């Protein structure tokens, strides 16, 4: 990295922390610290919602996902607009009427304390772990680029977020997120423009995308119905809607964002705006990855994108074999590049000889793919604990090796901004739930407001420390974007089922829902451990299981025992 890049990155990082402290002010009451005084306009609410969901994982892992697996991941987000409509229509007015600080307060009003506490604990476990992943992702960048110990970089990022979140609370989080959103948008557009500009002079963007299409990377919609295929139109619309409903309707990290709106109208507008722009935004990020794939059809990529693993195998006894494989891979990629150019030319001419060019390109691609698989096997031979997935490094590797000075710093600042925006919202939400649903409700009710603000700040620091510790173990979870969504899907269905039972099953009691939630969670974990069902469907399974079992248990609890009835 050049000095210009360092200057851009350092200025962006220091600027974000300083801006957060400045704009956050010094909240002296819990409403100010936890809900930004409920004074945000819809534009700020919308940006805050989007920045909370789009963490650094989104900007690191998603382009790599498109590079390796194509555009089909966009289907994951298709349920989001549906969820925005339902949350706006049902949850927002309800939460405002109850003037709650956390979503889980509603559950005590509707059911009982134990149901509220169960949902709050499920949230704390799931979001606490997810916060670790959110901090880990950008730490990976610095550790890879600078050769620093990842523990040090995790600590630096985590500390920066904790400083302004502890200082300014929800107001600092929301205000900083608008600045971070601007940095993110600029960085992503700059990266896309750079990829297009670096394509060979005789290959247009359209040519490159058509080659990527022939490699199966531009398949955005899969209309087939399959419970085991990870991303289809139906798993996205149905399973995705359940997941997003749970995330936006019951996850405190999002509920807290729109409860900071100054009215029901401001919150609703923020959510609906998100419903309209989120899917195109994800499509755009995936398109960056697909374009990157197209770029590497005309220029040889490294055989493996993780430089730490390749350095390890090179210095191991397998080093000479790996060097030989790398040389063969470069030759194979040279042949693949020639076939890609022939294919692009054939498609441009449109003279009917495209079929032969496609077959030749695919054969060349398969040959280099086999060599890459051999290289990955060798990496695993040299170090059985090595991560065989390099999806998370694809985008970064391109940025560091191909972008001009200044832009590298900007893109890295984008990743940091994304990470800080999401993790600050997570820490703020974890602190809120810890204070409102655990400390104030169960441990120390009736203390003064100043005491609760202090506890909120301490909880922010505590959860920051937990997230940093968990981040140390996050490096072996494969594709981070999938890891965080799978983790969420293990809990979201059950939590959503509890809330939907509250909204729609008027005759069901807290005990029936509580027991149903525990059984449903066990069922979801069993699906994860023992079935091949794709993770998006866990949300449907968990939610429907809670609703069905709650009705069943309620009915069973009301049914009189025959013997007792007879004696009476």
């Amino acid at each position, binding site marked *: 990295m050049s000095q210009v890049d360092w200057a851009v990155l350092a200025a962006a990082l220091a600027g974000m922390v300083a801006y957060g402290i400045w704009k956050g002010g010094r909240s002296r009451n819990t409403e100010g610290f936890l809900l930004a005084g409920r004074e945000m306009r819809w534009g700020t609410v919308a940006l805050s919602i989007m920045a909370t969901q789009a963490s650094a994982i989104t900007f690191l892992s998603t382009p790599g996902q498109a590079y390796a697996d194509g555009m089909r991941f966009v289907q994951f987000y298709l349920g989001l607009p549906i969820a925005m*409509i339902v949350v706006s229509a049902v949850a927002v007015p309800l939460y405002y009427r109850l003037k709650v600080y956390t979503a889980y*307060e509603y559950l005590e009003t509707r059911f009982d304390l134990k149901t509220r506490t169960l949902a709050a604990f499920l949230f704390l476990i799931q979001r606490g772990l997810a916060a670790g992943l959110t901090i880990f992702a950008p730490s990976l960048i610095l550790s890879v680029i600078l050769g620093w110990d990842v523990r040090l970089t995790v600590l630096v990022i985590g500390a920066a977020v904790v400083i302004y979140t502890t200082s300014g609370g929800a107001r600092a989080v929301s205000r900083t997120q608008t600045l971070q959103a601007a940095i993110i948008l600029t960085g992503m557009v700059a990266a896309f423009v750079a990829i297009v500009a670096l394509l060979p002079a005789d290959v247009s963007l359209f040519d490159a995308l058509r080659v990527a299409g022939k490699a199966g990377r531009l398949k955005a919609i899969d209309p087939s119905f399959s419970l085991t295929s990870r991303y289809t139109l139906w798993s996205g619309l149905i399973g995705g809607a359940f997941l997003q409903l749970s995330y936006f309707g019951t996850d405190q990290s999002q509920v807290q964002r729109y409860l900071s709106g100054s009215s029901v109208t401001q919150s609703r507008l923020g959510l609906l705006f998100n419903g309209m722009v989120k899917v195109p935004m994800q499509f755009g990020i995936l398109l960056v990855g697909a374009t990157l794939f197209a770029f590497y059809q005309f220029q040889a990529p490294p055989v493996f994108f993780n430089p730490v693993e390749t350095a390890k195998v090179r210095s191991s006894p397998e080093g000479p074999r790996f060097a030989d494989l790398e040389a063969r891979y470069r030759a194979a990629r040279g042949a693949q590049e020639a076939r890609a150019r022939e294919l692009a030319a054939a498609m441009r001419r449109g003279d009917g000889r495209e079929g032969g060019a496609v077959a030749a390109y695919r054969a060349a691609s398969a040959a280099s793919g086999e060599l890459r698989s051999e290289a990955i096997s060798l990496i695993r031979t040299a170090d059985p604990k090595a991560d065989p997935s390099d999806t998370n490094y694809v985008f970064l590797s391109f940025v560091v090796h191909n972008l001009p000075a200044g832009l590298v710093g900007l893109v890295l600042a984008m990743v940091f901004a994304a990470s800080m925006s999401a993790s600050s919202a997570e820490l703020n939400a974890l602190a809120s739930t810890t204070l409102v649903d655990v400390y104030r409700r169960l441990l120390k009710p009736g203390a003064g407001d100043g005491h609760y603000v202090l506890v909120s700040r301490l909880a922010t620091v505590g959860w920051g420390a937990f997230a940093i510790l968990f981040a140390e173990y996050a490096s072996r979870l494969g594709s981070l974007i999938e890891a965080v969504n799978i983790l969420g899907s293990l809990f979201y269905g059950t939590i959503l089922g509890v809330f939907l039972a509250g909204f729609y099953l008027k005759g069901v009691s807290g005990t029936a829902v509580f027991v149903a939630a525990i059984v449903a969670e066990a069922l979801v974990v069993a699906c994860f451990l023992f079935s091949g069902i794709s993770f998006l469907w866990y949300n449907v399974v968990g939610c429907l299981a809670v609703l069905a079992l709650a009705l069943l248990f309620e009915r069973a609890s009301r049914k009189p025992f025959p013997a007792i009835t007879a004696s009476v």
Partner: protein
Amino acid sequence: MIDPDGPDSGPRTPVPVSADEPPPFGASWKALYVVVAGTLAALVALFALFTRAFK
């Protein structure tokens, strides 16, 4: 006792809010919901066309 302005220590009592206030633009909330759903349908159609064009 419930403090409506602070974090509670028990169940909440609902307070009236202007949930039925019309949106600042558009005829009604229902109309806005239809716009969002229509945008989703249009995006799915566009993505299907995109998939087909680059197949």
